């Protein structure tokens, strides 16, 4: 390192004081004049001279303005150029580029900047053909351009853009690298273009539009398409997820492009946006993405991608780009368009020959970007005044266009064309601009009027029937793909697309209202899209199936969309029948979870952990659609590294986790739609817990004095208190006798207690806070040694903690049982602190006892769970209609009753296994011998082992479940396809009979029995209500026996 620096120390390191001075610069100038030719001998000297000049200039900018005067006076930049032109190799060129970077990066005074920019020297350097194959030269060069683009503003623009010669080297040289193989270079190019578009200088923007926009955007769009086709190939040829890496890259690249296009569009430069929208829509999005949605089986010369890729990419488009003219046209084609726009254009194409570049087709630009730019530049040189419009190829436009919105866009384009044709002679730019703007505004207005008309038409059409769907192939495709018969591979994409469209604030709400997908409907909404809702409910039903192929992400998105469709700020407009179907799905999710419910400790941890991760990480559709993994067919193995919610479960534990989540989601949805608050989840609510600095009445509590020594060696005196869910360390409250101030509180369930080897009076206690995000690990909130006054107290403390831990967990398990409508055995154990809590709540030591009350009185819990079912009007309606309906489709059929008899099996077995479980937990905890063990934690582990059933019995019952599930409740089996659409049916609550057969909420027989219970409130003997579920199955069982 020093060896190399010596070379310049010898030049510049004379004395610190004059290293930066005007004199020094004069000396450097002298060196330059003596070395105008670069040779091997003076190369090092020259490089060092240039480097020193850089330093002095930056110093001068901050300290001595005469430095810049001298630099300018002697025209020292010319020396730089002279050196550059001698092809002096990367060493010298690199130094020059670094120097330029530094100068423009570090100079603060505007006058200094103007000095540097004057005389066009910088432009000469920009057009210099450096050796771009050299990574470093390329890096310095593109950074130099970027730095310049940052300095570009209305004051400096004339240094770069020359109106008379039509030169704008900074821009045209930069965009030549738009497709450079090096990622960082491409990013820099995009950065430069955006910095330029941002400058609001009309002549410059006119130049960009007229001379560069068509070549640049057509090439850009073409390469995006090429990447998309590559991406599609990657999806189609994938085996065993081997293409993930490449795919990930291609997906990110697509997103990069979309984000870039969006950044251009939101600069909101109208001229550019028109050109860009035209190219993007007619050369890429419509002919490649939308076209690929349909007719995959028909051969076509047009390039295509597979429909799932098209759906995925279109979702990305709607999630990223919100520019109204673009997304409106695109959405309109998807929702209303048909194939004629492609075919009529194709005929047109044949007539006109291949020279027509305005056809709606994904085609290669006719010449390279560089060539186009060069040609345009020469053209500009010859006749300055000519302002060819941005579509100077393919001027002819036909009148008969299938879609109005496309028409609108084309109209705009045409306006621009006509005006420019008209203006060719005059050359008055201002005037042209005005005309374009006025005309396009007029076009917009007229289209708005048309729009309104169509909306009305559409509505009446919709009211009249659903025939219109016949010529909406794209919308049909979207709807039909929502069915997840095999798996949810495509379904997820359609949900994403619908979500993305409905959340795109560039799309005119009236467009979305046609399919009732609008987030904020204009009018008071009392109707919704029945087809969509039914298909969503079917996804939910399907997801509660044991063998379900619905991924959690799909379910969550379906829930979001359903809420969006029927839930508005104040009211929920869902029809009773649909709510009933949904309740059926929720019921099934309870069934599903019961299959996995085990009395084991780990179930509680999983249950709470799943709740936490779901609450902390709600589905983000934007992030979901950045993930390439969902582009490949759904898989189950975690070895792919795919996020749990985006794949199928693998193994029993994951299936349990999945069932837990399905339960949570459908429960939340059901509560949401019924406008009921969640009172049971999470099991531990932050606000119910004792917190540090709480002041507690401890008059009747057992307190054990101890010394707490933390890991870092701090030592404090505290009293240890054990509550229902928590242990706390308190110190006496100075104000009230018998009260204590909490200094620490932690959950018993997350605690580990171990003895200390050579000290019988001490315990090591650790409490971990479960990880809240995937990035963080569970970290200990307490890690300390507790020293008690003697070994008796130590044992008592240990016992109390261990018991508390077991009880805390058992209480929560009981609450889970309650949630799953499983019978709960009231705990005979004393809850909370010692004897005092046995009596009644008023004696309880702590301020709150919400939770134990909630759990302790099982019957009320049961009652409330049942009551909530009771409130569902859907059941009554469904039952009612079912009873009176004579439609053969809805009449109970023998197979369904036999299948419902099967359901007694799982219910029974689950019940028995669960009821026996708590007692099993209980016994070891009662056994005080447990405390003799050195480690409570390990003891509990063994307890778990003891708890588990003999393998044979559990296995056999499970196998039984599996086999029975297959012919179980009808809502678990795929429902038949809907034969009619309910869209037309928007003013009435009387539902067609057929609609009921779409998704039977539950077995008709079960409904009968339900109705029986509902009709006889006298029978609401709590115990019976609690077992309502079993009543149902029993009676169904009875049916079969008949």
């Amino acid at each position, binding site marked *: 390192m020093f060896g190399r620096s010596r070379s310049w120390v010898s030049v510049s390191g004379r004395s610190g004081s004059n290293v930066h001075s005007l004199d020094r610069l004069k000396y450097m100038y002298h060196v330059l004049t003596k070395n105008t030719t670069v040779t091997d001998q003076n190369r090092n000297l020259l490089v060092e001279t240039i480097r020193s000049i850089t330093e002095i200039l930056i110093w001068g900018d901050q300290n001595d303005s005469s430095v810049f005067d001298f630099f300018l006076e002697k025209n020292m930049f010319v020396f730089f150029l002279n050196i550059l032109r001698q092809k002096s190799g990367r060493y010298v060129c690199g130094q020059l580029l670094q120097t330029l970077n530094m100068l423009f990066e570090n100079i603060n005074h505007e006058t200094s900047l103007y000095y540097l920019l004057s005389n066009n020297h910088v432009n000469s350097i920009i057009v210099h053909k450096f050796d771009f194959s050299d990574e470093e030269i390329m890096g310095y060069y593109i950074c130099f351009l970027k730095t310049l683009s940052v300095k570009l503003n209305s004051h400096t623009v004339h240094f770069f853009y020359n109106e008379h010669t039509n030169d704008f080297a900074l821009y045209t040289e930069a965009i030549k690298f738009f497709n450079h193989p090096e990622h960082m270079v491409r990013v820099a190019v995009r950065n430069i273009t955006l910095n330029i578009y941002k400058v609001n200088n009309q002549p410059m923007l006119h130049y960009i539009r007229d001379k560069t926009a068509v070549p640049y955007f057509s090439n850009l769009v073409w390469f995006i398409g090429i990447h998309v086709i590559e991406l599609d190939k990657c999806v189609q040829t994938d085996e065993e997820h081997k293409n993930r890496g490449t795919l990930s890259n291609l997906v990110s690249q697509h997103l990069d492009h979309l*984000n870039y296009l969006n950044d251009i569009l939101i600069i909101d430069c109208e001229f550019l946006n028109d050109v860009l929208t035209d190219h993007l829509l007619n050369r890429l999005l419509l002919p490649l993405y939308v076209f690929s949605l349909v007719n995959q089986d028909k051969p076509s010369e047009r390039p295509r991608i597979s429909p799932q890729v098209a759906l995925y990419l279109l979702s990305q488009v709607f999630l990223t780009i919100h520019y109204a003219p673009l997304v409106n046209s695109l959405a309109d084609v998807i929702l209303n368009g048909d194939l004629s726009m492609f075919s009529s254009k194709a005929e047109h194409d044949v007539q006109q020959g291949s020279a027509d570049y305005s056809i709606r087709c994904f085609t290669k630009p006719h010449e390279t970007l560089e060539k186009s730019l060069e040609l345009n530049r020469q053209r500009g040189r010859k006749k300055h005044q000519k302002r060819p419009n941005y579509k100077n190829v393919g001027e002819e436009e036909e009148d008969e266009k299938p879609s109005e919105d496309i028409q609108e866009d084309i109209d705009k384009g045409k306006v621009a064309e006509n005006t420019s044709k008209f203006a060719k002679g005059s050359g008055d730019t201002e005037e042209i601009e005005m005309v374009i703007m006025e005309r396009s505004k007029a076009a917009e207005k007229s289209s708005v009027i048309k729009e309104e008309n169509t909306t009305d038409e559409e509505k009446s059409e919709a009211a009249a029937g659903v025939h219109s769907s016949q010529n909406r192939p794209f919308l049909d495709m979207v709807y039909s793909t929502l069915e997840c018969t095999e798996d949810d591979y495509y379904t997820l994409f359609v949900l994403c697309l619908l979500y993305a469209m409905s959340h795109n604030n560039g799309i005119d709400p009236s467009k979305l209202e046609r399919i009732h997908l609008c987030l904020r409907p204009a009018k008071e909404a009392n109707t919704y899209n029945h087809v969509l809702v039914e298909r969503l409910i079917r996804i939910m039903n399907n997801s509660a199936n044991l063998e379900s192929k619905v991924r959690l992400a799909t379910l969550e998105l379906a829930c979001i969309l359903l809420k969006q469709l029927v839930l508005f700020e104040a009211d929920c407009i869902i029809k009773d029948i649909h709510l009933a179907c949904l309740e059926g799905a929720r019921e099934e999710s309870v069934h599903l979870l019961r299959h996995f419910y085990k009395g084991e400790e780990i179930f509680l941890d999983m249950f709470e952990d799943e709740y936490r991760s779901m609450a902390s990480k709600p589905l983000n559709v934007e992030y979901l659609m950045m993930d390439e993994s969902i582009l490949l067919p759904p898989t189950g193995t975690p070895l792919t590294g795919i996020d749990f919610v985006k794949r199928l479960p693998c193994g029993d534990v994951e299936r349990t986790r999945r069932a837990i989540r399905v339960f949570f989601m459908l429960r939340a949805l059901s509560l949401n739609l019924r406008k009921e608050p969640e009172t049971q989840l999470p099991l531990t609510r932050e606000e119910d817990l004792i917190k540090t600095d709480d002041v507690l009445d401890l008059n009747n509590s057992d307190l054990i004095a101890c010394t707490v020594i933390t890991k870092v060696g701090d030592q404090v005196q505290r009293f240890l208190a054990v509550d229902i869910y928590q242990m706390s360390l308190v110190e006496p409250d100075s104000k009230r006798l018998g009260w204590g101030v909490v200094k620490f509180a932690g959950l018993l369930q997350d605690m580990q207690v171990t003895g200390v080897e050579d000290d019988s009076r001490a315990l090591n206690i650790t409490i971990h806070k479960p990880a809240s995000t995937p990035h963080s690990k569970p970290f200990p909130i307490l890690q300390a040694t507790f020293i008690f006054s003697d070994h008796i107290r130590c044992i008592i403390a240990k016992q109390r903690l261990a018991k508390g831990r077991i009880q805390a967990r058992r209480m929560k398990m009981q609450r889970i049982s309650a949630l799953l409508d499983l019978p709960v055995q009231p705990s005979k154990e004393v809850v909370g602190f010692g004897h005092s809590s046995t009596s009644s709540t008023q004696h309880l030591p702590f301020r709150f006892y919400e939770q134990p009350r909630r759990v302790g009185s099982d019957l009320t819990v049961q009652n409330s769970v049942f009551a909530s079912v009771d409130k569902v009007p859907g059941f009554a309606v469904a039952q009612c209609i079912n009873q009176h309906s004579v439609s053969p489709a809805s009449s109970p059929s023998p197979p369904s009753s036999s299948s419902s008899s099967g359901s007694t099996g799982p219910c029974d077995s689950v019940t028995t296994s669960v009821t026996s479980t708590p007692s099993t937990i209980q016994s070891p905890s009662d056994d005080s011998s447990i405390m003799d063990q050195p480690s409570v934690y390990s003891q509990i582990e063994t307890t778990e082992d003891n708890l588990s059933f003999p393998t044979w019995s559990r296995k056999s019952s499970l196998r039984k479940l599996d086999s029975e599930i297959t012919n179980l409740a009808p809502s678990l089996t795929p429902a038949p396809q809907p034969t009619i659409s309910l869209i037309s049916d928007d003013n009435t609550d009387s539902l067609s009979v057929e609609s009921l057969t779409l998704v039977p909420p539950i077995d008709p027989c079960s409904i009968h029995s339900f109705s029986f219970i509902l009709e006889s409130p006298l029978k609401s003997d709590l115990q019976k209500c609690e077992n309502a579920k079993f009543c149902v199955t029993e009676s169904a069982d009875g049916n079969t026996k008949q």
Partner: protein
Amino acid sequence: MAYAYLFKYIIIGDTGVGKSCLLLQFTDKRFQPVHDLTIGVEFGARMITIDGKQIKLQIWDTAGQESFRSITRSYYRGAAGALLVYDITRRDTFNHLTTWLEDARQHSNSNMVIMLIANKSDLESRREVKKEEGEAFAREHGLIFMETSAKTASNVEEAFINTAKEIYEKIQEGVFDINNEANGIKIGPQHSTPGSPGSHMGGQQAGGGCC
């Protein structure tokens, strides 16, 4: 200049925290900050040696992209390492770290190594952010932490080189997909040609560290 690997870094943080100065300080030793003049630059490269292997670091300053979402995400995506810089004399630059980090985690590939840098440690008298605070933030978010001064060059080498070491280790562990260039890692040409034109001079140029 043959190298075994090329690692691309980006350097991020609020304006004025010293990103450009750190970059130049590391990539070009000739600009020694002895004359009370700190100069910055937005691109640079330098060769270092890890485990006997020549590794080229190429560093891109992300300045000038502030208002463009597309550019931010693209820069992140192309980098194997990121230096997240704040200025110890300006608390707001420390407060903004969370936003920077969220952005970085969201847009980068998951293996990108992030180093947290507390710059301007030479300005002890004007310090607003304690070293412990920086350390705690780094620990909480799983970052490497270092206090540096682009002005005195203190710890600058270490910051860049430790980041490279971490990336190198990840490559050895096989967690980086080095064949995917979007990860910000490039494998060097298989056979180095020592006598190739310009190579001896290249070594003398911006390289700086390769000696």
